[in-house]
């Protein structure tokens, strides 16, 4: 058995792969956050709660309406995304003229309410959600058994991330969005309904979080607090990647998952902290983040 730095390569690759899986969730979630912040200048602390709502939505769709996993991947983001748009219309739009920090505080409060309500109803232990039939089982990769579902997570996240990046950076719709945030008055003068775009964008960001939540349901257990500790890590990812940069969040999300995986091999106690150390360093050297531009 070969060893790298005293660790058997098998263990190393196994942890890296797990890191990549975790990274998929970080990437998806930070993508949603980056879209919302980058295009709308809102710091959406509710993101973790919306991720949790996604998982619960999938759970309810399955247990109350008999709707399976694949349909949930489509329906849940629509449902929770609509809820997100409602939040934007009723509460967030009043805060645009104020300091960013009020948006942060409002969404923080919303997160507390949503999480609290669900915790009240369901306690904090998880609810089971089965892995979809087509994806059960695992593949023996030699150095570990990779459950098929976790492989799917990597593939789906990558696809979603790249699709989003493409839409925002390379299509006309994306161009309108980017223009609208830079100069809303001018864009509105061209006849584009800017407030509606903003609402839809927020909804889209929320939908991304929901999508991640549905994907997490079979492996991470559906529980009301699943977003709470995730959100802090995701913020760190977004800050490191550059708060407005889509590509930055994707790369950093996956990258961080891998770094975390590596840390778990060599120095497991620090695995929770390493992200914050990196964030502190990045903020000191390049506060706009690795891929970001100073606002």
């Amino acid at each position, binding site marked *: 058995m070969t060893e790298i730095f005293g660790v058997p390569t098998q263990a190393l690759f196994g942890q890296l792969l797990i890191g990549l899986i975790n990274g998929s969730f970080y990437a998806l979630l930070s993508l949603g956050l980056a879209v919302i912040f980058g295009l709308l200048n809102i710091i959406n602390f509710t993101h973790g709660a919306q991720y949790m709502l996604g998982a619960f939505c999938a759970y309810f769709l399955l247990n109350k309406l008999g709707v399976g996993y694949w349909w949930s991947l489509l329906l849940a983001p629509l449902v929770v995304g609509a809820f997100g748009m409602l939040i934007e219309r009723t*509460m967030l739009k009043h805060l645009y003229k104020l300091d960013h920090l*009020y948006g942060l505080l409002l969404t923080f409060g919303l997160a507390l309410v949503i*999480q*609290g*309500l669900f915790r*009240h109803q369901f306690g904090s232990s998880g609810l089971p959600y089965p892995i979809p039939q087509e994806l059960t089982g695992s593949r023996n990769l030699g150095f570990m058994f990779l459950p098929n579902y976790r492989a799917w997570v990597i593939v789906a996240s990558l696809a979603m991330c790249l699709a989003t990046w493409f839409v925002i950076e390379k299509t006309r719709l994306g161009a309108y969005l980017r223009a609208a945030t830079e100069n809303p008055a001018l864009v509105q003068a061209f006849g584009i309904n800017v407030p509606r775009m903003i609402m839809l964008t927020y909804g889209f960001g929320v939908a991304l979080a929901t999508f991640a939540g549905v994907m997490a349901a079979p492996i991470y257990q559906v529980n009301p607090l699943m977003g709470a500790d995730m959100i802090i890590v995701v*913020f760190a990812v977004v800050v490191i990647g550059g708060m407005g940069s889509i590509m930055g969040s994707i790369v950093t999300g996956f990258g961080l998952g891998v770094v975390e995986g590596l840390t778990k091999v060599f120095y497991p106690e620090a695995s929770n*902290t390493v992200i914050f150390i990196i964030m502190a360093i990045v903020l000191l050297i390049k506060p706009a983040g690795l891929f970001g531009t100073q606002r």
Partner: protein
Amino acid sequence: MRHQRIAFVVMVAFFAAVPLLVYPVFMMKVMCFALFACAFNLLIGFGGLLSFGHAMFLGTAGYITAHAAKEWGLAPELAILLGTAAAFGLGVVTGLLAIRRQGIYFAMITLALAQMIYFFYLQAPFTHGEDGIQAVPRGRLFGFIDLSNITVMYYTVFTVFIAGFLLIWRVIHSPFGQVLKAIRENEARAISLGYDTTHYKFMAFVLSATLAGLAGATKALVFQLASLTDVHWTMSGEVVLMTLLGGLGTIFGPVVGALVIITMENYLAQLGAWVTIVQGIIFVVCVLTFRRGVVGEIAHFIKKTL
């Protein structure tokens, strides 16, 4: 100014007399958190800097004090001093790192640093992780005042609280405080007037950290326990809530905010998750419609500063 003096007398009278009616341990908790919130308010209300990691100062002082009193057998006044000094030290280090950024980046970096501190305490053997440092002896203050007597402990905490409050009051009404307010209103103009704003913000940060530490150190002796709850990011969120509800930038706001929030938590504690829900609702309502907070609204109504 007169209104502020009246409010101060009311506050002192309230806290001095209330243990006759209400469970003293509960009121001691209120006073510790009131001091914590006042310290936090110094930074955001007067300095304009939102720190999302203030729990690290509360918790660090708590752990150091608990450890000093229990393992090293230090007298309570020395243990509290040591805890506060530790918070001061941490404030200096984190301040040097954080102060150069502002706005949202400042909040994020304080959050990151606080998370690092949290995970450090989670792993460090001396904190005993999830169990916390338990059975911390209260000892004898100055060698002869027995703090295990609940009334004696109460008035000791009361003295610490009033002393801390008066220090903050003094700072706010000093030239230093005026410069801080100027920086909060318009930093660019303050710089153009020749003030080294980074230096002032750093001083405010360290002062805020130290006083938060004082609150944490005292709290550790009140409850005879130092645990991970005190360094968790939800604690940082709580102090933001107390200050926001009480009134950002008011002098008495944080005290009122702490009183309301702690009382609310107490009443709703048995209903578990309702505490979180109500806290969240208060946040939302305050941000949307009640931005001045309780004391802020009162001050606005009577057209004086409080």
